[in-house]
């Protein structure tokens, strides 16, 4: 089977650019075939594949042609390729609302008011609010809300050997070594101190 040399379409970029400027869209396969004087749209497929790799065209989800980055300088509709590039466009990043950032897992988050000073050395003061996540499993070093004698207390969750201990961030409070099953209400994810 001898390999037939394909006739390379001449001035592909220029022709496509001209078509785009005239019609405000890219050609269909059939139109592209006509444009480059091929008899069947099948023949153009090979070149479309080539153009895709060189960035002259792109294909959308349904396979239709879109102008590729290498087809510039043409003005792309609905895009900001013309003029100065927008710095916002360059910095392609999603934003997180303060709410999402502080709260994390929305459904599992609850708020509590701090009244005591057992965590002052960790920077948590009376009058602060803490957000807790009920869905998390506490890890060593986390600040947790634990249920001790039917009251909730906020402490560092730590391990001594393989025992769990609850340590306050204030020397005046003793470290609690729970003897029965320890109930953890949640892990502290944020501390909020609102001034105004």
């Amino acid at each position: 089977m001898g390999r037939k040399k394909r006739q390379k379409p001449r001035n592909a970029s220029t022709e496509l650019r001209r078509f785009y400027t005239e019609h405000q869209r890219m050609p269909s396969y059939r139109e592209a075939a006509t444009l480059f004087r091929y008899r069947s749209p099948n023949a153009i497929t090979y070149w479309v594949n080539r153009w895709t790799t060189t960035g002259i065209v792109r294909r959308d989800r349904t396979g239709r042609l879109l102008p590729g980055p290498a087809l510039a300088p043409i003005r792309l509709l609905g895009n900001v390729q013309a003029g100065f590039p927008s710095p916002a466009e360059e910095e392609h990043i999603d934003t997180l609302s303060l709410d999402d950032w502080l709260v994390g897992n929305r459904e599992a988050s609850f708020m509590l008011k701090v009244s005591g000073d057992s965590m002052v050395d960790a920077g948590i003061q009376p009058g602060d609010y803490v957000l807790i996540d009920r869905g998390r499993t506490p890890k060593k070093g986390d600040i947790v809300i634990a249920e001790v004698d039917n009251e909730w207390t906020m402490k560092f969750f730590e391990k001594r050997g393989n025992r769990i201990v609850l340590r306050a961030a204030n020397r005046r409070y003793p470290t609690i070594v729970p003897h029965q099953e320890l109930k953890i209400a949640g892990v502290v994810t944020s501390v909020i101190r609102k001034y105004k």
Partner: protein
Amino acid sequence: MTNWNTPQWPRAIIHIDGDAFFASCEQALHPEYRGKPVITGKERGIVAAASYEAKAFGITRGVPLWEVKNRCPEAIIVPSDYESYSLFSKRMFAIMRRFTSAVEEYSIDEAFADLTGLARPLGMGYVEIARMMQKTITQELGISVSVGIATTKVLAKLGSKYRKPNGLTAMPNDERREYLEATPVEKIWGIGPKTAAYCSKLGIKTALAFANQSSALVAQRFIKPHVALWQELNGQSVLTIETEEKTTYQSIGKTKTFSPVSSDPIFLHAQLLKNIENACIKARRHRLVASRLIVYLKTQDFRTRAIEGVLSRASAYPQDLLRVADQLFRETYEPQTMYRATGVVLTHLGPDTRVQTSLFEPPIRLEKLEQVYAAVDLLAEKFGKHTVHLLGSNVAHRAPQHARERAELPLRKQYRLKGESTRKHLSIPVLAQTLR
């Protein structure tokens, strides 16, 4: 191994039902309430929800609170905190939506979801998905829920009631029978006492007996909604999961209990007007107008007298309802009686098209009312409900709804966080205890 897409699960519908929901929320917010009998509804004077610990004393919804105190002196009785309950409710639905978008919020503490086809993508069987939903809700919200998973909505609902609290009942096609056999016909969702009595006359005692009737007989003897029930009980899913928010109503009812009880006609009338104003607000929000209304008074000993009246023109403006409402009130009210609540139900609701003016109505008046209420609604949006209200309801708006211990506000209404206003609160549940 799990069998996916077997004939056992032509569809997989889940129903999740909060266990003693309001009481459970209170226990989640107050760790010190856990394991104790908790009752909500202090402001109403009757039980709204009873925790399972309270149910053990035979306390159920609707029991007067003095009886609760007799039967279970250690019961913790709290005023309803609807703000927090509604946050828990929204979270429960949100957790269900992590698994599927086809969630129907049926009521504040109940929801359906369609899991059909999710076994493969989620890599577990339907029962495991159900168990995981239940576990996540319990872990993250701190409340317990009961779950039914079956091939239709009616069966799923039956399942969630079957084992409570914290139950899970799975009803694949071939295990349906035994559950239906154990369910009396009046426990089927959608069968009221009248239909149950009718069934009993036909010799139908259990859900299974109903399901086993021939389709010809069911079609002949029962109305359409009951035929649908029959199909659903037989595993044929005909009721769809309604994911859209409800905006059409058959009727809009508003009632409010007050304390102490009263026989003062001016006070009672003011209470009734306030309910009418509330019902109209809701109707206007959904662009509906009513052509009839029912007015009722509830006596101290829980008897209700109700009368229905027809409006000269369909409306959602209190002024239009006033004349008929006044007349109905005069007919219902008995001077020597002590009342505990008033109520109104707007019925025969239709879309507000503003064309059916009565023949003798000067349209100028209608136009004025329209303008007035456009302003009233705008003011309400900005400054709070009832910023502008009828003079006749003033007494009801000014006086606290309840006296003595019933006047106690739910915790969340007793304080404001920095930056919160009375009308705008943070959308996160605040646990009741402070940390030491």
